[in-house]
């Protein structure tokens, strides 16, 4: 099997799961998850902490086996090392071995692959040139993060899995990293990335899969997902409020209201038009956690 014939087939799924469940002790981490990752796409897994993203990735990268259901990577089980030859994964930056040099870590990883990329090229792509002799423990936070992402690309992969790739990066480093990911995608690479920031997913992914409570809650293109989970939070104080259209959730604490809505502009206009006295108005984007609470409560109701 050569890697090349895998990622040129346009409609082939490089990774997929069917009815996957996994429990850890009494916790149900995944509950019947179906996921398809088509070759040459960037798919974003979106969900708050504890949603099951990491558990799903641990199955797809061969770290664990599912309790039931099927997990496939390049048409076979990812626990078979041969299936992982065209897979690149990012360690968390806290995990790099402090005492080893950057060059040694790259060398170690590249020895696992039949046709690794030259170390110099990988370092350059992620702005790490000249740091080969530096011990990992002596790198800055941003450099560690970039090295971690670079390791995913060392083996010349067809698929890379990036788990929260830009956590802790400044704006400039984040842009550089996004550019690297896009370049890989333009050359035909497949990307599966997780984030709990909708903005990050929107910036890169074409397709978003929303995970919560171990289930796929919804999936679609970024615009449609934004409509579902991209809520605004309108906070204000008022003795009494009229019925307002588009409020998906209303938390009241004394005279303090927290209104969740997909359209804050319209809500504020309606509010002003109604003539009801209010003060301390604040509008901000609801966090994903807040949006998820609304989403899951909406389902239960």
């Amino acid at each position: 099997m050569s890697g090349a014939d895998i990622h040129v087939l346009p409609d082939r799924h490089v990774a997929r799961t069917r009815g996957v469940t996994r429990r850890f002790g009494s916790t149900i981490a995944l509950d019947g998850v179906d996921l398809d990752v088509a070759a040459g796409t960037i798919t974003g897994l979106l969900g708050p902490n504890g949603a099951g993203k990491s558990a799903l990735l641990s199955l797809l990268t061969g770290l664990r086996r599912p309790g039931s259901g099927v997990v496939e990577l390049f048409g076979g089980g990812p626990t078979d090392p041969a299936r992982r030859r065209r897979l690149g994964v990012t360690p968390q930056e806290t995990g790099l071995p402090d005492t080893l040099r950057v060059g040694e870590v790259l060398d170690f990883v590249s020895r696992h692959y039949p046709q690794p990329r030259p170390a110099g090229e990988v370092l350059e792509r992620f702005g790490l040139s000249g740091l080969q002799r530096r011990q990992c423990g002596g790198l800055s936070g941003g450099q560690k993060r970039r090295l971690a992402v670079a390791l995913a690309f060392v083996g010349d992969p067809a698929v890379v899995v990036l788990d929260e790739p830009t956590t802790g990066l400044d704006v400039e480093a984040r842009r550089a990293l996004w550019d690297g990911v896009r370049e890989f995608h333009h050359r035909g690479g497949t990307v599966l990335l997780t984030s709990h920031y909708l903005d990050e997913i929107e910036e890169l992914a074409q397709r978003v899969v929303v995970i919560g409570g171990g289930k796929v809650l919804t999936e679609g293109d970024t615009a449609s997902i934004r409509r579902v989970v991209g809520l605004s939070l309108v906070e204000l104080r008022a003795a009494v409020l009229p019925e307002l259209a588009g409020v998906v959730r209303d938390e009241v604490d004394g005279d303090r209201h927290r209104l969740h809505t997909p359209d804050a502009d319209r809500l504020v206009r309606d509010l002003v038009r109604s003539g009801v006295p209010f003060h301390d108005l604040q509008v901000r984007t609801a966090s994903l956690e807040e949006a998820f609470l609304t989403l899951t409560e909406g389902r239960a109701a």
Partner: protein
Amino acid sequence: MSALALTRTHFRFLLLENLRVPIAVGSAAIFPALSLLFFVVPFGFGDDVVAATSAVIQLAVFGVLSSFLFTFGVGVADDREKAWDPYVRTLPAAATPRIVGRLLTGFVFALIAIVPVTIVGAALTAASVTPLRFLAGLVAMLVAGLPFLPGGLAVGYSMPVKAALPVMQLIFFPLAFGGGLFLPPQLFPGWLQTISEVLPSRGARAVVIWAVQGIAPSLLTIVSFVLWVVATAALAGWAYRRDEGRRFR
């Protein structure tokens, strides 16, 4: 990539990672030799061939015990806290190169721990051994380490580094003393001799003394030693499975 080449890669990487912390390597290697120098050589035990040879053996066993408990115990606890180990498991390699690499690293550190004490013993005491017996002794050292390897793993898989370190020290000194690795057990009072015979460290000492000096241990010591090997292996397996369940994020 052949399995052999990958094993070499993992071995080299782990060795390098551990050697970069020279204080850890150094203290494990120096302690047995210093003990021999301070507690055996000046007190005349060193002049008697049998006693001197036993003294070198028991301190070398101490070196093996400490390297196994620390490389496999604290080392594994440390791995579990870092995200590096799960990352390495996503690379296209089976588990074998990684496991064999770690075992070999433990063996190298055990070897590093017994070299200085052997040299001091040969140079400054009456300890003596035939080349064949010496080789038998090296093999016996590995056998002697058998309960401490899974014992270390069991601790490593059950607790974080901050707890694993003191727990190791707590287990390690009474075990080493009780097993006769500091003082020969013949000097113990009767009740302690009885306890000593069932300790894994006593079994470890006895196995090597048997190979090098031909002094057969008691049946109780051998049976206890075998039971310890089985028990620690079972414990390590249990701790590993329990850990897999808990480590979920």
